[in-house]
């Protein structure tokens, strides 16, 4: 008996204290969050694989590689610029402008100070498992904003102009609006209860509005509109590749959505959205999935079965319900995403035919319009939900405030930057190069060398598909002779 008591006492003496156990559990919790964010980043790479395939497939054969390389080089320019400037903007601009200190929760004191490139938290800091992967998740969002814009500009924008614009959008504009409306301490959140939990507006809507500003300066592709201003349609060289790209984007979206949440079980009871409000990963995944279903359905019916717009409708549907994905009932998400799919097709057609803006992939309608629409819907269907540090109830007025803040924040920089590039003749490729195809000028080669070249086709406003060369040459002559009609075709 005495020996048993001695053994028991000895075991007790070796047992870790409650404090030690807490420290280990806390470390495990941090590592779990680190691993979670790491894999969301891995999955989100698929978004960029998808954007590359999507846009390259939508381009004509002569522009395939210049289109694809644009997506790849997005990574080359946005990554360093977001590291040196963008992350600091997110950490320090929550009150609207740069500020000392941070209005975040006590669990993250001094977040602003942790976002500078020379901060310990941006390196191999064994005391902090969160910041580096959190940074990477946001970086992937930044790439996404650039990729949203890139598709709209294909086949006539200069690669270098696009890279400058994407740095501005990905490392300054979108992350500024994220600081204002997509953080628990942002001024729109703490003052107005602005609620956009999975980034309908702060990523998609803002990228779409920025893109609209660029497109107004860039102008349509040669041959896009006839003399009466009616839209012709270019045939993408590989629609299968475009649809595969969209499916990859959808797969990556699951990583995107998951990365909008976080969990540290020792600090919080469960999953939290970006505002620190409780939700579940399952609810988010449910809303995305049924959002695709509703969006595909809406896109199919609005476009009368067009494959491109059916899949784009799925994207539009998800974007329409993203803002309220943490609170929507799945049936509500299904209904709303259906309307999003419908509206994206109608708005895209209206932009192309009435506004005569040549958005090659419908980015302004799908991302821009549906991004704003998603935030608008939260004001109607999720009003009263407590948001942010101050638990300010979300409201229609608060959502409108966010929309009014973000529209000029995104549109004006896009318009002004594109206007400046245009003034320096650095925005658009020369018309001769545009007609020949960007691949020949940029890379001096055709990227389908074993395939016979067939005449390029174009679909007229009345639906006839004809050889494009005479139409392009005629429009080229107008462009190169001061846009005067009836000019003799060169050659």
């Amino acid at each position: 008996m005495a020996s048993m008591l001695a053994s028991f006492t000895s075991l007790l003496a070796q047992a870790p204290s409650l404090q030690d156990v807490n420290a280990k559990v806390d470390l495990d919790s941090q590592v779990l969050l680190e691993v979670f964010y790491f894999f969301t980043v891995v999955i989100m790479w698929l978004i960029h694989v998808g954007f590359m395939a999507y846009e390259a497939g939508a381009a004509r054969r002569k522009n395939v590689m210049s289109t694809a390389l644009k997506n790849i080089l997005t990574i080359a320019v946005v990554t360093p610029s977001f590291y040196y400037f963008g992350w600091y903007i997110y950490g320090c601009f929550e009150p609207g402008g740069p500020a000392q200190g941070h209005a975040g929760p006590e669990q993250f004191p001094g977040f602003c100070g942790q976002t500078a490139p020379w901060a310990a938290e941006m390196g191999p800091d064994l005391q902090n498992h969160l910041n580096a992967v959190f940074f990477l998740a946001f970086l992937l969002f930044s790439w996404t904003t650039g990729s949203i814009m890139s598709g709209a500009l294909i086949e006539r924008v200069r690669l270098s102009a696009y890279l400058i614009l994407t740095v501005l959008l990905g490392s300054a504009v979108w992350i500024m609006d994220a600081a204002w409306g997509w953080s628990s301490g942002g001024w729109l959140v703490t003052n107005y209860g602005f609620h956009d939990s999975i980034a309908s507006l702060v990523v998609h809507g803002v990228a779409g509005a920025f893109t609209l500003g660029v497109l107004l300066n860039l102008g349509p592709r040669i041959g896009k509109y006839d003399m009466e201003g009616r839209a012709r349609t270019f045939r993408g060289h590989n629609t299968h590749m475009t649809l595969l790209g969209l499916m990859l984007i959808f797969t990556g979206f699951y990583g995107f959505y998951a990365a909008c949440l976080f969990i540290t079980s020792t600090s919080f009871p469960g999953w939290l959205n970006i505002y620190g409000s409780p939700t579940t990963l399952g609810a988010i995944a449910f809303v995305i999935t049924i959002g695709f279903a509703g969006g595909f359905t809406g896109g199919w019916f609005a476009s009368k079965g067009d494959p491109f717009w059916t899949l784009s409708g799925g994207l539009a549907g998800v974007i329409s319900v993203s803002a309220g994905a943490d609170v929507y009932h799945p049936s509500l998400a299904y209904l709303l995403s259906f309307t999003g799919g419908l509206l994206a097709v109608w708005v895209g057609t209206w932009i192309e035919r009435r506004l005569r803006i040549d958005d090659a992939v419908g980015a302004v309608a799908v991302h821009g319009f549906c991004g704003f629409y998603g935030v608008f819907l939260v004001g109607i269907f999720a009003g009263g939900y407590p948001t942010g540090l101050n638990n300010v109830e979300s409201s229609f007025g608060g959502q409108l405030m966010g929309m009014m803040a973000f529209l000029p924040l995104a549109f004006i920089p896009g318009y002004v930057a594109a206007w400046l590039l245009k003034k320096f003749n650095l925005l658009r490729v020369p018309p001769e190069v545009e007609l020949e195809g960007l691949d020949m000028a940029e890379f001096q080669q055709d990227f389908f060398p074993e395939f016979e070249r067939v005449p390029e086709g174009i679909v007229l406003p009345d639906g006839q598909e004809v050889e494009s060369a005479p139409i392009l040459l005629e429009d080229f002559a107008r462009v190169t002779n001061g846009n005067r009609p009836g000019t003799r075709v060169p050659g």
Partner: protein
Amino acid sequence: MIDSFPYDEWSDKIAAFWTFGPENSTGTYIMTALGIILMVASIVGWVWLENRKLEARQCFCARLEACPRREASRPARGPASRPWRAHRRIPESERSLSCLVNDRSSFHPSKATILASGP
């Protein structure tokens, strides 16, 4: 045994280690400045190089008189390049059309045909 390793001791040392000194040191500022310089220089380089390529190609296609000697058709380096193309000379008479419609094998304005449901 792995659990007997002096992890805490290592942890402290490793956390204090930084390639160019601890955080907020001169070394980290210098590295940051160099990185920003590289980033800006690469963007300027992209603008310059692309502009040169586009101007040369435009000149080649439009048969302008003042073309730079450096041909736009010089291939890029790398396994995807096709060096034979650099030496393939397009006859002067074909230049404009061959560039502008990128359809050397079949295009002639008079051959514009209705492909689908045209008359």
